[in-house]
Structure formats: C-alpha cells, structure tokens
C-alpha cells in the first residue's frame, strides 16, 4: 500500500520538475528605480531604436499573423473605444494625414489651409478607390467627419465639427466648419481614430453590419470574421499607395496571456499584443523574438468620488495620498514595467508638466487625519473589477494605508456591476486608467470635462473653463501655459492621485522589420517588411 503513496508523490514531483525546469534566471527581481528593460532608452524619446534605413527587401510572406488579447466588438473605429477595434481596423481605413518624424505629412488629403479660426479647407487625392470599387470623393470625407462628430465614442475628438455647414466644395476639396476654435483638429485627423469610410457602403447596410464588414481605402481589405477565433484581411489590389510585403493579415483572438507568449515563441504568430510583463525579459533574450516597449500615453490613477461626503474632503484625500508610496505602487503593481506618475498625463504628450510624484510622508498623513477629525482611525472602501493591474495597485495601497491606521476594505464586483455603480456615483474609491488617443492634452485629460466626469464628479467649473480655453487656442505656447496652470490647480485640489505611467509593449518575431513601438499602441502594419 505504501507503494501507492510513493507513486503519488513521485508523479507530483515529476510534474513540478517539468514546470520549473526552464532556466528561471532567478536574478534578483528588478529593485525599484532601475528600469530593467535595457532596450528602451530614456523613456522620454518615444521613437525607440533609431530608424535603420530598411533595405528594399524583396522577401514577401503570405500571412502576417497578429494575436489580440480579446475579440473586438466591432471593426468600425467610430463605434468603439477599445484598442482591439483600432488594431483590427488600422490596415483597413486610412486617415487624412499621417505623422512621420513629428511632421504632419499628407496622406488621403494632399494639402490643408486654415482659412480662419472656424474653417479649414482640405484638398484630397483623386486617385483613391474604396474596397468596393467606388472612387473616394469629398462627400465620403464629409460623411466620415460628420459621423465622427456625432458618434459618442469619438465626439471628444471631432465634436467641434459643425455638421450642418461642413460641405464638399467640389470632388477634391472639403470645407470643414467648426462650432468653436478647436486646436487638436489636425492632430485628430492624423490619428487612427480618423477613418475615411465609404458613404455608399455605410448607407447600404445598417451601422452594426458595417461594423462587421467594413469598407475603407486601406491596403488591406476585410475578408472574413470567424467569431471568437479570427479576423482575416486580404491585400487590396487597386490600393493607391505602396503595397504591403504580405498578402493576407490574420488577426487571431487568444485570450490567455501565456498562450500569446507561447505562440510568439513557437512562431504560431508574428506579432502579439498585451504580453504580460513577466514574459518581457524572456522574449528579449530569445533570439527568435523581440520586444517593442516604451511609455504608453496612458496614466493609472487613484480615483476619488469627490461628490462623496468623505472623499470630497480635501484633507482626507491628501491624508490618503501622503500615506501612499507612489513609486512602490507603480513598481510592484506593474512588476517593474511602469514609472511613478509625476503628472496628470503621459510625459510624451505636449503640454505635460511635471508636478509630482506625491510625497510619501506617513507622519504628515497622520497629522492631516487628526486635522480632519479621524485621529482614531478611518474606514475607507475600494470597489473594483477583475483587472490585474488595478487590483494589484489597490492591494498594495491597502497595506500602505494600514500603516497609518486607515483600514481599507476591497469589494470585487464583475465589470457590469462596476460600470452601473460608476454611473450612479456609488463608487467610493477605485483605481482606473485613461489613455490619450492622440498626443494632445485635450485628449489626455478626457476624464475632467464636466459632461464626462462620471467617476471623479468634481463639478469644479474652474477646471472646465481652463479645459475650454486650452482646447480653443491655436497657438501652442499659449496652450502650454493654460494647461500648466490647469495641472498646478489639479495638483493643488488633488481630485485624483496619479499613480503610474505604464510601460506597454508588444512582441514580434525577430524577422519583422520596420515595425517600431508607437505610444498610441496602434502600429502601422502596412509598413512592415521581413528579414531573411
């Protein structure tokens, strides 16, 4: 009978040996402060390794396979706000302009002219065809811009467009009218959120059908969507520009992070998104794979519900802030792949002002607690949903608050319950993140406008005024001054406590070239070339 037991233990040992037999370089975990990914130079330079002039490689590949972490709800960039949609739609649609080396270069629009503060004249290319064969005309551009203005997912970027008076002057020119002066307009027109859709195709089917079978002008054409499994795109024969180095693009949906890493290592996929930080070092060491990382345009923050009687009290917010070691929170929660947040938007965004990070001073925190009348203890509560990084931040903060006598309970609910609690203002405290869709302060501070502030609920008109001013002045120097004043004010009021600037990244096979890290997280697939 003893043999039975011995066998059981032997089998278990065998299993664990297999699991951990891979060469776990148990080097000391990255102590905070030193970024362990040598590959990324100082985080401020967003371009990553400098541009090696890609030799015109004749190497063509049949399929470019990309692994996504979740299935997009739609491929229509105007009907969603999630990366998975934009990654799927990037190669199908094209914007009016593109940014190359910081310069606005013509793309679908050949030239632009700011007639006055409220009107912009665009001249378009005349040789662009849609996937359904129709020619792209000014009407399509007007239709796309108006669609962008009205859809609630993109109204933050294109809401300023006056949909009645924007019209096509002729086949190739469009006159865009604005309701109020709007500085980030051109920036928006050069982003992945601006997509010229075929008016005819859109109107021939209803909005949702278009979302599942989009028609654009991009180098890749939509072919098939096998729900839950993959989206297949194929090369567009009559594409007006330079054809990509691959015939088809297959976007596979692999939910499990470790499976995406494994597929990258075994060559099952060429590019994989949302690789968990734990695997970054292994993918870098592996000769067959490379990691493309850099500071994203997002910011993770501790969000107070300022309409709540307790967290509306500035003393309490600051007491909590002083008890938190922001540096440690960022490093632990993101396993070293994040910098402590010292401002209200990512550093790569023009207009960013360094105001923090918040001083870690438990003594001061206790003082403020006494001032606020909570010297013998304070009860606080976090509500969150299943999200690896937010939960990590909250658990780290929870144990830090314990040091200063603030007992903190965490309630984990599922996403739907969380969203409805958020809308009804029932969230006490939580950790969230906002990411700018275009490198412009207006988009980075998306959580602050009064009409949109369902989580912060600060109802501070002064913030709204500054936001409007910043958005409506065209001169960059004046905008920077306005946003600097706003960021100082926000730092003073501390309606939210910035925690981390996450370093994001995606993995690729080493034979993928001309494919760099982009802060928005939506790379240009068509430009990809292949080595060997």
């Amino acid at each position, binding site marked *: 009978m*003893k043999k039975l037991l011995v066998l*059981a233990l032997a089998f278990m040992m065998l299993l664990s040996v297999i699991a951990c037999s891979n060469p776990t370089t148990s080097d000391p975990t990255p102590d905070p402060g030193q970024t362990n990914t040598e590959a990324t130079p100082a985080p401020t330079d967003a371009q990553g390794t400098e541009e090696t002039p890609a030799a015109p490689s004749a190497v063509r590949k049949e399929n470019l396979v990309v692994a996504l972490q979740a299935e997009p709800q739609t491929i229509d960039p105007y009907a969603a706000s999630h990366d998975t949609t934009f990654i799927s739609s990037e190669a199908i649609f094209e914007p009016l302009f593109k940014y190359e080396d910081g310069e606005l270069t013509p793309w679908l629009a050949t030239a632009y002219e700011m007639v006055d503060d409220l009107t912009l004249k665009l001249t378009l290319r005349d040789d662009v065809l849609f996937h359904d064969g129709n020619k792209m005309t000014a009407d399509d551009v007007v239709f796309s811009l108006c669609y962008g203005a009205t859809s609630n997912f993109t109204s933050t970027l294109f809401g300023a467009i006056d949909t009645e008076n924007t019209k096509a002057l002729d086949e190739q020119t469009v006159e865009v009218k604005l309701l109020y002066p709007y500085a980030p307009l051109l920036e928006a027109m050069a982003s992945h959120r601006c997509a010229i859709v075929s008016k005819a195709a859109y109107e021939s089917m209803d909005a949702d059908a278009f979302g599942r079978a989009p028609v654009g002008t991009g180098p890749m054409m939509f072919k098939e969507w096998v729900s839950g499994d993959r989206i297949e795109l194929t090369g567009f024969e009559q594409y007006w520009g330079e054809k990509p180095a691959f015939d088809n693009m297959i976007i596979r949906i692999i939910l499990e992070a470790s499976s995406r890493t494994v597929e990258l290592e075994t060559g099952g996929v060429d590019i994989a998104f949302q690789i968990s930080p734990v*695997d970054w070092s292994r993918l870098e060491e592996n000769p067959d794979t490379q990691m493309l990382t850099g500071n994203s345009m997002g910011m993770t923050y501790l969000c107070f519900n300022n309409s709540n009687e307790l967290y509306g009290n500035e003393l309490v917010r600051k007491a909590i802030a002083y008890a938190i070691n922001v540096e440690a929170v960022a490093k632990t929660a993101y*396993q070293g792949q994040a910098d402590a947040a010292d401002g209200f938007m990512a550093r790569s965004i023009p207009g960013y002002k360094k105001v923090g990070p918040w001083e870690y001073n438990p003594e001061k925190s206790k003082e403020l607690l006494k001032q606020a009348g909570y010297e013998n203890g304070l009860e606080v509560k976090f509500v969150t949903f*299943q999200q690896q990084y937010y939960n990590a931040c909250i658990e780290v903060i*929870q144990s830090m608050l314990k040091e200063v006598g603030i007992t903190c309970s*965490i*309630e984990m*609910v599922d*996403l739907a319950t969380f969203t409805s609690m958020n809308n009804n203002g029932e969230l006490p405290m939580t950790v969230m993140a906002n990411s700018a869709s275009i490198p412009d302060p207006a988009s980075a501070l998306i959580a602050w406008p009064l009409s949109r502030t369902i989580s912060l609920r600060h109802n501070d008109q002064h913030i709204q005024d500054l936001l409007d001013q910043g958005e409506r002045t065209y001169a960059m120097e004046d905008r920077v001054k306005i946003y600097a004043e706003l960021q100082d004010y926000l730092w003073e009021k501390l309606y939210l406590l910035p925690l981390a600037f996450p370093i994001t990244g995606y993995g690729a096979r080493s034979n993928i070239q001309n494919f760099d890290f982009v802060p928005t997280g939506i790379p240009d697939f068509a430009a990809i070339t292949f080595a060997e």
Partner: protein
Amino acid sequence: MKKKGTEQGHIKKRSQFQETWKRLSKNRLAMVGLAILAILVITAIFADLIAPYPYDEQDYMATLQSPSWEHLMGTDEYGRDIFSRVVYGSRTSLYVGFISLMGGALIGCIFGAIAGFFGGKTDNIIMRTCDVLHGIPQIVLAIAIASTIGPGITSALIAVAVSSVPNFARVVRAATMTVRDQEYVEASQSLGGNNTHIIVRHIFPNILAPIIVQATLGIGKSILLCASLSFLGLGVQPPMPEWGSMLSNARTFMRDYSYMVISPGIAIMLTVLALNLFGDGLRDALDPKLKK
C-alpha cells in the same frame, strides 16, 4: 484479542461505529488520508500560530522571491509569504469545501431519498426540478448570487451548494431505488415502520457508500469552482487567501516563477487526495459485502 473458537461465551455486541472503525483502521491508505485531513484541520484552526507572517503583509523589497528559508514557499508579486497564505488559505478552502458540501448533500439527499422511495409523480417532479437546477451552469448561478448579495465567500458557498444538490439527489435516488426493493425494507414495512423511520433507519445506512464517494469527489470540485469564480472576479475578496484564487492569479507567473503555482496546486491536490483515500476507505469499511 483472539476470540477463542471453542469458547461458548456470547460475542460482545459491537456498535456499528466500532465495527466500521475496526475495519477502517486496517486499511492503511485510509489512515494516511485521515492523517493528512487531521493535519489540514489543525493547520486551519491554528493558522495564526503556524503561519510565520500575517497573510496580507507585503514586502516590496522581496517580491517574487523563489523559496528560501525565511519564505518556505517563496513570495508572490506583492512580496507576501506564500506559505502563510497557503496555511490561512486552508481555512477558507476547507470552510467553503465542507460547508457547501454539507448544504448540497443535505438537501440533495433528502430530495433524492424522497424521490427514490416514493417514486411515481413525486419522483418525476423532484427529478425534473433537479434537471432544471442541473441545466443552469454553476457559473451563471454564482454570478447572479454574487451580484445580488455581494461577492465573497458566502455567495460562492451558496452557488457551490445549490449546484451540487442535483448530483447528490440523483445519486441518492438511484441508490434508494435499488435498496427499496430489498426484502429487509419490506420486512420493516411489515413490522409497521412508518416511511420516515424506514428511510432513516434502513435506507440511509445502506446508501451511505455512494453518498460518501460523491461527497469526497464533490469537495475537490467545489474548491476548484472557487478558483474559477475568483478567475471571474467573484470569489473571495482580496486580500483574503484562498487556494483556488491563488492558483488562478499565479497563472501569469507560471513560466518563470513556477513555485507560485505549485504550492497552492499541491495543497488542493493533497486535500482532495486525502479526502478520496479516506472516502474510499470509509466506503469499503461500511460495505459488508467487500471482504478483503
């Protein structure tokens, strides 16, 4: 003590329990199972003494340390000592495992016995409600309950209990039906025993074996269900440790820090292994036909 063959003395009447214990103690494997269970229960009760660190104490200097002397099972991504969390986790996991099982078994057995014993319409009604309950996936049940009365152990407990009722009912019904036709049940009916008396005194002891097997299997499943609930964010509330959620969270670190997955995994496996060994032993001991 050897019972003398020839001695005419009366044989000492041993109670059913002693009889089962005598036969059970001979089965070494069942004893091993019982020993492991005893250890687990003791660790659960004296967790505060056994665990070297409080389960929620974080140490940012020592995140993701592989097993060493000060951290027997290494540390997790927050620098918390995994050994202490496994020790405290035994408390939650055993609590969830056993209580949900008791609930599910109790209701399930009652329904099963009634359905099996009376048959006919009552049997049909009970069985169809069981099919309905069985048809609803445990996860839907868990989410609904967790969302209405708030997430946490209690909701996970209820979800697990409710979803294990159909299995128990079906097992008990089948066993009751086979036992019901036996002569001794008719004998006690002829002696004027009313139905509840018969079910409790005669039918239950004889169908204890399948119930035990279902119970020992059930506990393992309910602990693992807790893992899938926490995987959905509905399980135990952080920072409370629970083996299942520790396992599913450690998944992302499995490649480089495999020790994080192994310790909770082995804890679950040991518990379920012990339960099954003890359960099998108990079943054999209770089943007179099984002469070794």
